């Protein structure tokens, strides 16, 4: 999406867990290119808690950026479950066969709102790159 300084993605999902998975996939598709035929080299568990869904989404995306950096891997499969109020548990599958495209510094809260309509959930996340 156009944004002068940085990069923004629009993500949607039929439900909140799908929105969280799509946002993660969108962010990582900017950040890395996974090699064809990459195999899963590790799995990770993530557990997060935040006061609201927007903060949980930002925490989730920033958690992935930090984990990626710490372990020198990226994530190719996500199993996300959410429970109110603002709790996330996820199981990630990681691979080390990838190339970094862009160093994303962080997912930001800038004008962040998760919107709900009859088709599901939708949001725009702005990243500092």
């Amino acid at each position, binding site marked *: 999406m*156009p*944004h*002068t*300084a*940085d*990069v923004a993605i629009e993500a949607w999902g039929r439900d909140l867990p799908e929105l969280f998975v799509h946002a993660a996939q969108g962010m990582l598709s900017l950040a890395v290119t996974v090699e064809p035929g990459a195999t899963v080299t590790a799995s990770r568990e993530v557990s997060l808690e*935040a*006061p609201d869904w*927007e*903060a949980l989404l*930002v*925490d989730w995306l*920033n958690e992935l950026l*930090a984990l990626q*950096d*710490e372990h020198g891997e990226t994530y190719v499969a996500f199993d996300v479950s959410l429970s109110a109020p603002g709790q996330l548990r996820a199981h990630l599958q990681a691979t080390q066969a990838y190339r*970094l*495209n*862009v*160093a994303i*510094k*962080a997912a*930001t*809260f*800038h*004008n*962040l709102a998760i919107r709900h309509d009859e088709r599901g959930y939708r949001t725009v996340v*702005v*990243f*500092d*790159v």
Partner: protein
Amino acid sequence: MVAKKDFRRLTAFLWEAPATARPGMRVPARIYADDRLLEAAMDDRSLEQLVNTATLPGIVKYALAMPDIHQGYGFPIGGVVATRLPSGVISPGGVGYDINCGVRLLTTRLHEEELRPHLERLMGALFHDVPSGVGRGHAQALSQKEMDQVLERGAEWAVSHGYGSREDLEHTEERGSMQGGDAGAVSERAKTRAKDELGTLGSGNHFLEIDVVDRVFDPEVAQRFGLEEGTVVVWIHSGSRALGHQVCTDYVRELQAAGQRYGIQLPDRELACAPLDSPEGKRYFAAMACAANYAWANRQMMTHLARQAFERVLAGQVRDWHLTLLYDVAHNIAKIEEHTVDGERLRLCVHRKGATRAFGPGHPAVPDRYRDLGQPVLIPGSMGSASYVLVGTETAMQETFGSTCHGAGRVKSRHAAKRGVSGQALRQKMEREGIVVRTESLGDLAEEAPEAYKDVDRVVEVVHQAGLARKVARTRPIGVMKG
């Protein structure tokens, strides 16, 4: 929404939106720009972001924007916000994720024609020695103890380990070592992520450039700064790497919770902030100072690596290859400073997000060597275009809390820049102009194409004409290394 009609022209280069322009504003919003730059600022949401910052509790006088303003995330890039101690707020978003992103300039006595025969080899040596690029910038890992020392001592730690001289520290903002850092305020995750990044350039708009002084505007000041027409200089533009990113990420969240406790209402959550005298505000300041110190140590380490590369390639080939640090400035930082506001001396927290400190003559923070002239102000252009050296002024002290612009300012998104020009074509264009280019990724090169930025000559002309810093010299690149 803010519109151009909300801004009234005060002088040829200064526009103001009154505090009544939008509900919640505590002070007017001001932008330094000519007509064209103001129009450019209207094209994105940067002025709306500027107006949002005018709502921050404790803000003094004005929310300020420099002519290189462009859209950020929360605060605009090119913004200055000063809040009053003790209870005004500090905001991590007012500093940004790359804490103490900044630039330093090294001068030489080498003339372009002496260097030309060795330029390819020198760029190769720099590219080899200074780690750069996405995910490639690895250096030797610091131990936990070393990391804590770097965070609290900054460039002084690097110099005490043999990576530079005391004179380098004299010529660095805050002497490269900001007081008030507490490594205990920095998360383990931030330290872990950055343990092998000290002395690395990074990616994005960061660069190491060899330039030649091609114009001198103020011969007396230029001579005192060691800048002579035709001589070679080196620019290093980098920041605090993943350490700063993680500190900002951690504290945007922490200060959101704190802000709610203190009853702070904000138009955008990315403006999260807490009073300077609150435990949360103090803790962020201590962590931010650590990240700033990491960045100063980082640029100092790269200076050492650049000096080694110069020595290896040029010793015995040219008469003098030495690199002397002219100055080093931060352009993403919050500082506690004293300023005179309406005749009263106040202690303020000056947030400079994409803005450069530009203290005038006589200020005690200006190094001895330059004190009678004013602080050297370093304005890097976009990759492949000219850069500027200016000097701080008394006008900046009176109007902008001693601040000026920081660079060219983006007008195109990174994506749009990539669509407009290929990295290969850009490289060929620069090489036709006699610029030696070294980069990891041609895509990254295209993102930083000069066309993606405002015209640095125009931006600098505005701050010069408005008196926010005075032009001293201009440099043009002959060797570009991009992360």
